[in-house]
């Protein structure tokens, strides 16, 4: 029982990080059919942003970095969308490979700029310690994820931009003929989705070191969240991220770290037997 309680915050914070990463993916994937393998490198960019800000702001770097990393990663996403991805709409598998090439280049760039060894970002003093078994840094990540989800929800449902984004996601052609500039919406989606990856990167500096391959550790699991949650579904992403985070941490605890991923994989395949299209999908009669 004690072990169960101890694992809980770890599982939830893994889930929170996965959620921050997967939110961006589920929208770019759901809306544009783009599988962005460079998303992991936007995470890395966010983490390095916090690292660089350290020189200026000292231990407040993590807080200051949140908005800055959002903008940095968002801009990188926007550039990627404008220069490359927009030529690939409707060819999801090709974007996967294209963005993988981009991700290779970005990783090597990070190695050349910051060196191959990992670097450390100092967390603010008030994030050290915790309540009982719950460390403050994990609590912080959890709250950050909650706030982000609330923000995304409000954006989608309470702003005109957000509603247009949903419209494009559900029916691109119809949205276009209704006078929505789908190109702009795509750019915005990509900016926000990539920006969220930057935020996730900052959060990751609280629980581990930063290196050029930081993103690669999380990107596969984040994609699994998208698959299990259902395309473009906010609620699906939340539930799937929480589930996957907890599953990861308990599988690791009850078997060992090396078997955990195999167990997670098996659970996902089993889950797809029941819900092949993920948790939440609109039932449609179109022959895809």
């Amino acid at each position, binding site marked *: 029982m004690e072990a169960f309680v101890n694992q809980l915050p770890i599982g939830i914070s893994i889930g929170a990080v996965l959620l921050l990463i997967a939110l961006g993916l589920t929208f770019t994937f759901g809306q544009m*059919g783009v*599988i962005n393998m460079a998303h992991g490198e936007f995470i890395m960019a966010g983490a390095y942003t916090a690292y660089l800000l350290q020189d200026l702001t000292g231990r407040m770097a993590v807080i200051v970095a949140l908005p800055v990393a959002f903008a940095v990663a968002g801009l990188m996403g926007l550039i990627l969308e404008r220069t490359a991805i927009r030529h690939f709409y409707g060819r999801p598998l090709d974007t996967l490979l*294209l963005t993988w090439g981009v991700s290779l*280049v970005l990783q*090597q760039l990070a190695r050349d700029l910051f060196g191959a060894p990992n670097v450390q970002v100092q967390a603010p003093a008030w994030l050290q310690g915790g309540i009982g078994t719950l460390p403050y840094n994990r609590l912080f990540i959890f709250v950050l994820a909650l706030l982000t989800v609330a923000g995304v929800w409000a954006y989608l449902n309470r702003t005109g931009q957000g509603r247009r984004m949903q419209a494009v996601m559900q029916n691109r052609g119809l949205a276009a003929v209704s006078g929505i500039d789908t190109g702009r919406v795509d750019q915005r989606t990509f900016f926000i989705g990539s920006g969220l990856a930057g935020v996730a990167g900052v959060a990751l500096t609280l629980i581990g070191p930063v290196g050029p391959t930081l993103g690669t550790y999380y990107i*596969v699991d984040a994609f699994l969240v998208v698959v299990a949650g259902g395309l473009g579904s906010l609620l699906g992403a939340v539930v799937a991220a929480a589930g996957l985070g907890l599953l990861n941490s308990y599988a690791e605890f009850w078997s060992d*770290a090396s078997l955990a991923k195999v167990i997670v*994989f098996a659970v996902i*395949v089993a889950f797809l037997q029941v819900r092949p299209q993920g948790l939440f999908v609109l039932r449609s009669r179109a022959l895809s």
Partner: protein
Amino acid sequence: MNAVTNLARLRGPGIFAVVAALALVVAPLALEPFRLGLLAKYLCFAIVALGIGLAWGQGGMLTLGQGVFFGLGGYAMGMHLKLVEASSLPSSGSSSGGGPALPDFMVWSGVEELPALWAPFADPVFALAMVVAGPVLIATVLGLLVFRQRVRGAYFAILTQALAAAFVILLVGQQGLTGGTNGLTNFFELFGRDLADDSTQRGLYIVVALVLGVLYLGARQLVNSRFGRLLVAVRDGEDRVRFLGYDPAVVKTIVFAISAGMAGLAGALFVPVVGIISPALLGVVPSLELVVAVAVGGRFALAGAVLGAVVMGYAKTSFSEQFADGWLYLQGALFILVMTLAPKGLVGLAASAREALAARRRPAVPASRTVKEIA
């Protein structure tokens, strides 16, 4: 006119014969042992690429986890070689005596008894059978589960990638069983022959080239058969195929299993050729690299897949020899360029160049093409 069409029909087999002669006769004579070994390695990758060409190019299944099958084949072979070696060197083998001899790395990591998983691999027939059967079995089970539920496209790609990631973590974690990060290495002999010997390596090269040739011909036969047409139909309209009375899940599973079996075979050949099998050779990145190679060569033609694997393998070796870090930039950039400008790869470029050339010549001097091709 008839001569032209006949010649055009002969062009494929003609190129195949020339390439086969180059690979089987000229290369072993002309290349020094080190280079021949490298070529053998590229040809192993080409076998994996052939499978990717079938599954992805023909069948539309983007598999990002071929490293898993490559690894299963490689480890099956590696385990067998390790066991043979351990039993031939009784002094350094089992420390406790009595039971079967232990491979060196197990002794180092304090394993005292040969794990039950290892024991049957002492039998060469079992090991060789597992090289193909293991990957085929796993691909079949996964394929049936996933394809029957109509999980496809990007979803399938993501799943296979997750499988590759999980497999590597498993291999690294089970140190005592798999050799961990180091994998299996220090192989000295293969079926009684000294692996360090040049003639053994040359023989191995020829075996690899022959296997690739035979698999290529088999894959071509498959592509040109009714089943191959069905596969293309499944790729372009899976839902429509159901209404022709076929189960696309079965078609896809068969092809996925074939590609997995090819990767397994390639892994098994890779082990004696290169002398190591380790997690770093079969994770997410190496799996993707081979997909990239297929895309560069031309995914819609089997020959493109093979060509791409050899070209990219060669490029990787020669560039990382000179500027190690530059390779990642180059690979990334090359890849972005190919995907953007030439989605059909080198083979596609060659085909459009040939067409452009023919179109320029035909109206002006209609006979010249015929003359040239006969000459």
